[in-house]
């Protein structure tokens, strides 16, 4: 199996694991970590695609996305801290108030 295909498989596995984690947990921080895992899977895919097509665009793109992900992580954690201060918990159930 070529290295690119292995990369794609690992990326898909990471994305699937992250998705399962996101859907099965109630803790906001863990859910956030799960989305990060999904994110890494996507990044791995980008790198693999760059390899397959023999171009650097995929890796450059992945580097930019890493920076944005870091910024977004800081923002998301800040929001989670604020939510925690309001309700004293980081469970999503505490915020399930918008029921139709």
């Amino acid at each position: 199996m070529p290295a690119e295909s292995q990369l794609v498989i690992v990326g898909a596995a990471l994305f699937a694991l992250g998705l399962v984690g996101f859907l099965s947990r109630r803790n906001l921080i863990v859910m956030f970590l799960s989305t990060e895992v999904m994110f890494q899977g996507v990044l791995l895919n980008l790198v693999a695609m760059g390899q397959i097509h023999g171009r650097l665009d995929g890796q450059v793109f992945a580097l930019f996305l890493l920076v944005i992900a870091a910024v977004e992580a800081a923002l998301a954690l800040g929001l989670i801290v604020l939510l925690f201060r309001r309700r004293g918990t980081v469970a999503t159930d505490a915020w399930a108030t918008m029921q139709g």
Partner: protein
Amino acid sequence: MSETAVAACSILILLCPLLGAGLIGALGRPVLRGRSHAPAIIGVGIGVIASFVILHMVRAAGGAETAHVVLYQWFVTGAPSAWFNVEVLVDALTAVMLVTVTFVSLLVIIYSRDYMREHGQPARGYERFFAFLALFVFSMCALVLAGNFLLLYLGWELVGLCSYLLIGFYYQRPAAAAAAKKAFLVNRIGDFGFGLGILLIYLTIGHLDYETVFGAVQAAMANHGHGDVGAVAAALNTDLATAVGVMQGIQNRVAIIALLLFCGAIGKSAQLPLYVWLPDAMEGPSPVSALIHAATMVTAGVYMVARCGVIFTASPAVMTVVALVGAVTALYAATIALTQHDMKRILAYSTVSQLGYMFLGLGVYAAGSAIFHLFTHAFFKALLFLSAGSVMHAMGGIIDLRHFGGLRRIMPWTCRFCVIGALALAGFPLFSGFWSKDEIIHHAFQSNVWLGLIGLVTAALTAFYTGRMIFRAFWGLERVPEGVHAHESGRWILVPLGVLAAGAVLAGYIHVGGFIEPVTEPFALAAAQAHHTIPVHETLLHAAALGPGGADVATHAAEGHNYGLMAASGLIVILALGLAYLAYVIWPGLPSMVTAIWPRAYRLLFHKYYVDEIYDAGVVQPLRGSGRLCFGIDEYVVDGLIWLVTAVPRALAYALRGLQSGAMQGYGVTMATGLAIIVLVVLLSGW
């Protein structure tokens, strides 16, 4: 008359009261407070002086001259673009009206200075009261000075507004607020007809200024109703072809125009069937009753009919309507006044009745006598109302004759003045009311015996109810309401009363009818055509030539006064007064015996022929019912339809809102499922 002088005086008469009102309105509460009467007195005082100057100028010009001054051009409209001007028309009639209005108003405002105080302190709304009074004087002067129908309508509506504001002066009292509303609404009914009449004049003639309109109507009705095309064309300043059309329009519509204008007069001057607002208007302060609902505003209708003599006399049928309405109202209101207990209400019905006399006079082509009666009535009725106010002031706001009596010794001066006013109202020989009322009855007899008889019977009733009021208030056992320290009123109240009392005696010797003869000429001419009996016209001209406003009884006699009639009416008045003295002083048991004999008649009169109840059941309730119906349709039918339309999106939302669970994982699963479906589709389609 120099136009400049007339213009200057007119502007002074109009602007000084208006400025006074504005000044009180702006500075009354923060600065003037208890001195708020000063701007009103000064403003109206200047108006009085200017009015007398105008009267003097008219007299100096022999009374026959008319000054028509355009103050400025207001706006332009119409197909052959015509300017509507702010213009004044000054002639003998205007001068007499101006002097009456401003002079009586000034006295009433002076009187109000004390009347509107409680224990020396200005009553609540003191500034407001004087601002409204000054505004009213402005409005009435605008009405009288107006040189076209548009300005007349402006003044007409402004006095209506002031009347509303002043009747509702004690707006905290529900009765006063209701009375103000009633006056305004009833007046609106009449004013609607009045407005239609003015519109019809404009549609027919294309102009609204008095001189053009009257000139055109006169020309169109010349030659015994066949018209004079050349004169119409000259009056309108058009070619003959246009004039023929206008002339036919005038001939067809003049009776309708007159009737519509008369609608306004019925409303404003409180005639049958629109008189109902005036007795209720007594909820306002007494000076308001004296000024607006006795002396000045309610005479606007009489003034308007006299001013529009050309239009009214063009149709004998309309003149008959005017005479009949006047005669019936005079008799009708006098019978109601017999049974009322509220002093101000007695006077209110008496005002309605006296206004009926004036319309009777107009209807029998005696406009001079009608205006003469207006003039004398302004003095003695203002005097009576102010005296009643003085009594009310002393009685702590109580004016019901059942609660006090025998005030002769407590309030000697008020009593004296009130008796003078009452004698003038009753038509006691040699007092002013005697001369003017007698002239009207005399002319009524000349026109139709029945009208004359109604006049005489009403005169007897007037004397009786006036006597009843006076004797119950001032004679008999001395009674005052409990807890009231009765006292004579102060100088500010008594001096105006004294001046008015002098007027109530002497006004009858000023020969108003002869003075305004040039203005009321259309009536005399029409009477000559209608009855072929007109010695009066010639003798009046003769009297006017002797000296305008000549003040002696001989002039009255020369005017064709019927000595037999004078003696008869004098005798009737004295007998009626004697009967009142018998019934209310000598033998106080008599009235209750009479009411016991005819209880039904008494109840009918006491409840004012149930007219208020009939109007309530016949007009107010159906209208209120239709209002409720409209409300119901709006509430249930229209709103229901809208509810149905909005139900569609609401039902959709109800069906879909279950999807909004609020749980984040639910949304996540939906997203993941959607993503999986997209991926599957992409893969299976082999793209």
